[in-house]
């Protein structure tokens, strides 16, 4: 199947790649742009390990076609830290031991950032429902929820 030339912005940088029209955005990020931070846990939009933002909207990149990224702004885990400065969520995940195997972590961080962009002062229940699309099998979620709440509090204090 002939490939399609796609131009988009990933983590602020202009990129172009040739996508098979059957390829997911996740495959394009991982295989063509070598951004392997986004993970495939299911390929059916159930686990959230591939979460990215497309034009500011949280999506499962396994459910988006690569060609749909044409002209769009994509933000992945690789763009979350600014230079050497980690995002507060990233720092708090380390500090709270909110990861074990770490495979779900990139997707959860991207999803949590999208939540805090929208709702800087979420309740525990809001965090739990927002992250209900991101499976973690190691932690039982306890420390993840605490890390997100703590990051939100720190970010509110900084504003």
């Amino acid at each position, binding site marked *: 199947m002939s490939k399609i030339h796609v131009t988009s912005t990933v983590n602020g940088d202009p990129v172009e790649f040739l996508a098979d029209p059957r390829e997911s955005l996740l495959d394009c990020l991982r295989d063509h742009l070598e951004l392997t931070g986004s993970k495939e*846990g299911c390929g059916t939009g159930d686990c959230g390990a591939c979460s990215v933002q497309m034009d500011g909207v949280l999506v499962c990149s396994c459910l988006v076609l690569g060609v749909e990224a044409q002209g769009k702004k994509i933000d992945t885990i690789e763009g979350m*830290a600014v230079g050497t400065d980690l995002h507060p969520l990233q720092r708090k995940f*380390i500090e709270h031991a909110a990861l*074990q195997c770490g495979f779900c972590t990139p997707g959860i961080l991207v999803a949590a950032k999208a939540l805090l962009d929208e709702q800087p002062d979420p309740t525990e229940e809001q965090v739990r*429902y927002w992250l209900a*699309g991101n499976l973690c099998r190691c932690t039982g979620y306890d420390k993840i929820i605490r890390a997100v709440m703590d990051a939100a509090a720190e970010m509110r204090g900084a504003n």
Partner: protein
Amino acid sequence: MAKDELKTGYRLIGTRPDRPDGLDKVTGRARYGADLSAPGMLHAAVVRSPHAHARIVKIDATKALALPGVKAVVTRADLPTGLTGEDWNLQENTLAGEVVLYDGHAVAAVAATTKFIAQEAAALVEVEYEILPHVTDVDLAMKLDAPVIRAGTADHSVPEGMSPNVVKYIEFGHGDMDAGFAAADLVREHTYKTEATHQGYIEPHACLGQLGGDGKGEMWVCTQGHWYIRKMCSAVLGLEAAQLRVTPSEIGGGFGGKTTIFMEPLALALSRKAGGKPVKLVMSRSEVLRATGPTASASMDVKLGLKKDGTMTAAKVMFRMQGGPYIGSSPVGEALSCALACYDVAAVQHEGYEVLANRPKAAAYRAPGSPMAAFAVESLLDEMCRELGLDPLDVRLKNAAREGTKASYGPTYNQIGLVESLEAAKAHPNYAVKLGPNQGRGVAAGFWFNHGGETSVSLAIGEDGTATVSVGTPDIGGSRASIALMTAETLGVGYDDVRVNVVETGALGVNEPTHGSRATFASGMAAVEAARQAIKTMCARAAAEWGIEPEAVEWRDGAAMPAGPNAGKFPPMTIAEIGATMGATGGPISGHHEVTAGGVGASFGAHVVDVEVDPETGRTTILRYLVVQDAGRAIHPAYVEGQYQGGAAQGIGWALNEEYVYGEDGRLQNPIFLDYRVPVASDLPMIDTVIVEVPNPGHPYGVRGVGETGITPPLPAVANAVAAATGARLRSLPLSPPKVLAAIKAGRHG
């Protein structure tokens, strides 16, 4: 860093420093199984059986091989013959021979230049099947008229006259059963069932393998044990182990399910056939659920005798477990040994059958066998406590095993922490919360043996006095941090002065996988011994420099110093000074330790859960959850809590939602995460933890493994809580809303 209050006497142990792999994991840099690519790499796809049981009449790959871009197809004909025992089981499970034995069983594999071509080619491989009758339920598989999975598999232990699907019989116990039950005021007996569940690690199996015609190969793979990958791939393919170099990736969860091989030999076989090009093979989620290693399903009878005061007088269990189509995969032996391990009972009898069924080859899953056993025994004990009007924690305390108790499975316990765990559970504020309507509280105890095993560790002192530790146990839950803490504590240096690496098979002696809750225990113990060896060498270097006897030098606070006034007056020689000059004082300094680690400390825990059951829908909500468990010594308490919380969450999933659903056609009906529903964040509350510390005398820092026991009590604890909330006692898992609702409506025990 804040040092936890309960720890004393240590500089570092018991603190909570950042994990060394933290930065990589929050930035997306950490490399997992599917994250590595190689120049000239091919992509593989697997052809799988759509039938539960069928004879393979013909495999025709002509059309697949004709597709441009296809480089190799392998079938069983490409693998060596003559294997026996578990090696044969592994080979047969890698690629079916004459008969496919379960839905998803691999029959062929294809390598091509792209993923899409590989998938197209897999679809073009024509397989002709002759469908055979199948059986997936353990009780049905034991019936004399059940379809026979593989005649002649049974070993000598099986009594005559049983179905050929019954392949092993186990029996053990002690005490006078008749007298035990005669002494009881209340004797009850019931049957319990648990469905198969999956470990549900979020990372699907993935590997990148390369194998040349010279028999030399390499593999990058997500695994809990790369020496097992080496041994098993070598056996299945007829390779020499030393010629296969296996490097573990970061691992995206395992829980026992990544301690064996599934598709790894296929990547190597395809590579060899494609002229040695590297081959990447990544499973889809449905392949993971259909064709890796879920747990056994179980059918269990339990009979208990209790006095009015709660004293257990006798206990008898009969377990039937299927672990797929091969002998040796069901954990029925472990289940029996765990069943009554928490209690000091004068008369115990255990019997079990291992049964074959048309399901995937079961693998280990966190405390294999123990959760099912606990569901049966702890449910019945709870029911009897209610009947006698006794507090369920008091009854468990009354019968609890302690130091000196002869365990139900044979040995005599040394120091263990069950009593302390039960007492801590009873004293916890959660146990005193007043419950409302439709709410109920459940408790249960749990056990796992823990494991030591083959372990080889090296430590090297750097030129600046820092230390590198090479271990062979992949880090799943934070073991690199824990091993660094123990090493730094021993050397007298800072946590950040030690780096722990998980190294490839060529770098160390054989290591068993990260299984049996052994990584922090066994690799940690070996790292401490390796550090002590390096300390001995460093003391000798200082002694030579000072011109005194090595015995006159001691190691304190990261430096060699004269052992006393008689040894002479020399300023301390720090590890950094010794490292800086070691080239001139005798050469590189390292330590090494290899051992089949003994000294294992048994693990016990107690859980308390409060639930609310919606009487309109039968849906159960977990209101609060408490895990109490003996860690021996919590090296890094945050990761100990993480194991407790993660185990509890998996056990809650097993209790409430998770199950393998097979259709009449023998096909798995729910092979995606939408339908195989693991707990999500909104299903759970915070999970409270109490770390009990009864040090294990068999470890230099008192460590017991902490990984597994936590999944065991949730199954019965949740069921007991649901029974308390609704009055309906369900004796089969999962407690899905329709089942609970039906039981409530029936108003009787279901």
